[in-house]
């Protein structure tokens, strides 16, 4: 407890192949404001899902979460909705990059995703490489160094700005 790398809370679960058009429909890409985007997160799944999303902290999903578009807003809208981490059996390549680059914790763990119950609790420590859920702890390979540095600064752009401020490239 208490680690700055430890995030989590209430779980909302989704199935497999959740695509970017469902996470944030293309018509809302005219905004980059996380709060505004969050208003429309998962809109195709209806208001009940949207309300539960806003009351949750961790998105848990099956295989290939975030497949589809390269739209970075698919990660941003979750941050805007108050989501602290996404734990999935697997991610689409671009969604995973966008999550890291926007400072959203994204962890691949089929076992943890399997053990998660909708409405339960999950905690992720991305430095230690553990997911705690349902009284069990699941290890995952910690991020490579370059990704840890980006996460520690809160995303790619803040990371670059911190680099400039530190006089390094």
């Amino acid at each position: 407890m208490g680690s700055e790398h430890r995030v989590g809370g209430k779980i909302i679960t989704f199935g497999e192949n959740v695509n970017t058009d469902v996470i944030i429909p293309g018509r809302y890409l005219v905004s980059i404001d996380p709060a505004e985007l969050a208003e429309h997160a998962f809109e195709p799944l209806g208001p009940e899902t949207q309300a539960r999303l806003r009351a949750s902290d961790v998105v848990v999903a099956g295989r290939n979460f975030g497949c589809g578009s390269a739209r970075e807003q698919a990660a941003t809208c979750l941050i805007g909705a108050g989501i602290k981490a996404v734990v999935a059996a697997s991610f689409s390549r671009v969604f995973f990059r966008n999550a890291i680059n926007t400072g959203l914790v994204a962890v691949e763990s089929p076992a943890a995703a399997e053990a998660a119950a909708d409405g339960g609790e999950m905690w992720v420590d991305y430095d230690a490489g553990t997911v705690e859920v349902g009284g069990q702890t699941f290890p995952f390979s910690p991020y490579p160094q370059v990704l840890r540095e980006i996460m520690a600064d809160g995303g790619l752009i803040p990371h670059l700005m911190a680099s400039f401020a530190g006089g390094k490239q």
Partner: protein
Amino acid sequence: MTAKTFAQKAIERASGVADLVPGQIVDAFPDLYMSHTASWRCIRTLEKMGVEELYDVNRVAMVMDHLSPAMNAKTAADHALCREFAQKMGVKNFFDVNSGIAHIVLMEHGLVRPGQFIIGTDSHSTIYGALGAFGTGVGFSEITAAWVTGKLWVKVPESVRIVIDGDLAPGVYAKDIMLKLIGDLGADGLTYESVEFSGSYVEGMSVSERMTFCNLAMEMGAKNAFVAPDDTTLAYLDEAGVPRDELDILLPDEGATYRATVRLDGPTLAPQIAVPHTVDNVVGVGDVAGTKLDQVFIGSCANAKYDDLVIAADVLAGHRVAPGLRLIVTPASAKIMAQASDSGVLTKLIQAGAMITNPGCGACAGNGGAMADGETTLSTANRNFQGRMGSYDSKIFLSSPATAAASAIRGVITDPREIVATAVVA
């Protein structure tokens, strides 16, 4: 020295790091950074960073394709911001709303070359493999970072070979092969993999067909896709004005290590169709024949090149679009539209009842061609996700231009071989 895949060679060239192995993360310096409708977000991010100098403005390419022409004051202002930025910074490769879809426009203008490493704010940037380049999609923050630092972190992927031998039966096209592969391998079947296409069918493909292949490889999760440059590639590059002495062709080594090899026999394939709401929900067209359609869309970076329009026009020749069905045709680029105009293909389409819209992403990006509740579209695009084209309570099927055109005639999903078989043979 160990034999290398195309991806290993391309990332070694872009990073300057030798002897890379899959899984390794390095900084690569892309040759080109493409941003489309996301460009304004990159500019706003750059402003936030307070950075005014770009790493290499000549590597920046901006194409206004997803919302063209502007739909409202907000998108018009976004376009205006991009125009002003391009002017101020000296971005030579700026293509405005009249140009077409970014990927196609860049290739037509000689900005995509074999062996290059190219990133774009669009997942279908895998398409650049049609000319032997390493193309991959990234978010707008990453393009912005590349504008400033010239680099991005990249993981060296494993590679998979897809070998397609033999010719296709009449009425069957490159799109059908890709739908079949996506259906068989799954929407995440090749996640994070570099895909190398080969085989006798692939060697005989036009550059347009190679674009369809490399574009759709993304729908299996591929990081990039590749067809080895050959005489067909060189002829295309000649036309695009690329000097041959500037080419740096990279080919995979004989004996390179592949995670898997997938084989597909061309002659046995029948027309395929992706059923709502996932791209890998693929069946033979016959399985869903007769499904009522409200709209047919021939467009997108997957299938709105010149040869796609010719195929559709040939199927539609002598027919009319079914009463009550909307056929929307959106050429991929201004060049393709002009060519289709000169050759009479546009006239044929219009006479059959098609509505021609301006070059660009059009209905695939949700800009025009939206559906009402309960409606169904058959599209030649690359995605059939719920709500992508209007109502969340509407459906998208995906097919080749031939299947789309045949279905437009009947108003229901139709195997194109039925229409072609009944046509009067000249």
